[in-house]
């Protein structure tokens, strides 16, 4: 074989090998299947996604890849993820995009949660709603924020434990042998009392039952009485309504009589006040007249002759002996 032929065969082999390599690479990267469907989604945290990262549907095998990860030109606080998936993947309008991984140590990929059956297919180029990615740093931050509360909780728990211990100590103290014996004796006494008073209790309950049984008729009687009282009041009301003019006249007459009596009392009071001095003088005069009458009577009894002549008393001087 001449040298030119040999060189041509080698060159052809290299070209064929390169073509096979390129085909293999395309097949392995999945970019070979034509007609992929593109979507958009947004995350506050892209979670390390980069072009070429896998896209999985419902945690299954890779069905697409991330095309581009850039910050949103309209909102600099979020990242825009462009990805493409196979056209047979049933992405619905209510499907959700999330950043997740198969295991805690695995790489993150873009996952798609299935939507509902009733929802329509998401059109090409549409934006899927996303679930925000929580990174390990966020979890650590949350744990760090929970730290003081956890410490406080532990402190409270320790306090409650101490109190519980004290309570248990007191309960133990209450339930010592002596108290247990006392409680046992008390329970024994109570049992004895119950056994002893059982007939009385039974009798009392029987009386209560009898009284309760009598209450029913009593309440019925009371209802009847109440009905009769209502009836009587109704009759009274009717009577008052019928005799209202007469009653009104009677009250007017009574009012006038009371006014006259009051006026009369006032006049009598004024008369008594005005003549109180005269009354006192009359009473005093009566007293004097009575005294004089007594003296006159005494004189007539003891010296009747004094009506005709002077008794002939002799004037007395102090110290003189009494007349005989």
């Amino acid at each position: 074989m001449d040298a030119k032929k040999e060189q041509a065969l080698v060159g052809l082999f290299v070209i064929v090998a390169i073509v096979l390599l390129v085909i293999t690479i395309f097949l392995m990267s999945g970019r070979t299947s034509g007609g992929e469907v593109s979507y958009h989604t947004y995350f506050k945290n892209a979670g390390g996604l980069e072009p070429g990262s896998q896209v999985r549907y419902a945690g299954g095998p890779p069905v697409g890849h991330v095309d581009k990860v850039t910050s949103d030109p309209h909102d600099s606080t979020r990242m825009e993820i462009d990805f493409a998936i196979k056209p047979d993947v049933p992405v619905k309008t209510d499907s959700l995009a999330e950043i997740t991984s198969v295991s805690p140590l695995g790489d993150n990929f873009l996952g798609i949660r299935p939507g509902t059956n009733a929802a329509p297919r998401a059109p090409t180029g549409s934006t899927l709603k996303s679930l925000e990615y929580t990174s390990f740093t966020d979890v650590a931050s949350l744990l760090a924020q929970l730290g003081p509360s956890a410490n406080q909780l532990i402190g409270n728990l320790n306090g409650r434990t101490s109190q519980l211990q004290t309570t248990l100590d007191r309960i133990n103290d209450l339930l010592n042998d002596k108290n247990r014996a006392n409680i046992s004796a008390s329970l024994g006494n109570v049992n004895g009392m119950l056994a002893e008073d059982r007939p009385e209790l039974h009798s009392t309950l029987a009386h209560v039952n009898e009284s309760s049984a009598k209450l029913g008729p009593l309440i019925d009687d009371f209802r009847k009485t109440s009905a009769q009282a209502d009836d009587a009041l109704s009759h009274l009301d009717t009577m008052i309504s019928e005799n209202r003019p007469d009653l009104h006249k009677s009250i007017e007459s009574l009012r006038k009589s009371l006014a006259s009596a009051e006026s009369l009392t006032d006049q009598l009071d004024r008369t008594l006040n005005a003549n109180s001095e005269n009354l006192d003088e009359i009473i005093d005069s009566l007293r004097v007249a009575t005294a004089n009458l007594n003296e006159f009577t005494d004189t007539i009894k003891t010296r009747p002759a004094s009506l005709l002549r002077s008794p002939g008393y002799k004037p007395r001087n102090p110290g003189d002996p009494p007349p005989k």
Partner: protein
Amino acid sequence: MRHGTMKRIRGISQIAAVCLLAGLAAACGATHPTKYYVLDAPPAPAPGTQAPIPVRLVVGRITASHLYREDRLVYGTGTVQMGTYEFERWSAPPVDLIQDMLVAALRNSGQYRAVSRIGSSARGDYVVRGHLYALDEIDNKPGLAARFALQLELFYPSAGSVVWSGSYNHDEPVEGKHPSVSDVVQALDRNVAAGIQQLTSGLSQYLAGHVQQQSAGN
């Protein structure tokens, strides 16, 4: 018969006329004049600087034996015998004289808000009432004495009880070798003045202390 009857009537008429003339002659004899005596009110004490005690007093009637409810002066001989002068009389019954003197003494003291005699229109917080035991001449040898004995009490109508009582009993000597009734009355006057002064002072002390206690209690 008719002539005899007329003669008998004429005889009876003559006897009656003679008796009547004799009686009139006896009745028309000269009578002894009656003298009347009074008791002077006690002198008014000097007005005090203290405020009057905020009570109104009513002086009631003084009770006594009937001897002192009449106007005759009374004398006593021995220990149990008493008599009355016929022509020596008080200007008013002794119980009224003593009541007047009590009212005057209490008013003149100026220690009370009001003092009035008991009557239909009289109103008061306390009633002063008393009993006159003696206002008479005592003929004890060798001298005479004027006896005055009076008991006073203070009645509190709101409580219905007697809250204070005091008594006075004293024989005041009658001055003069041959004392007259006027001398006896003067001695009685002095005795009554002293007695009323003593009793009203005791009454005033009680009321002042009692009202002060009531004010502190409130």
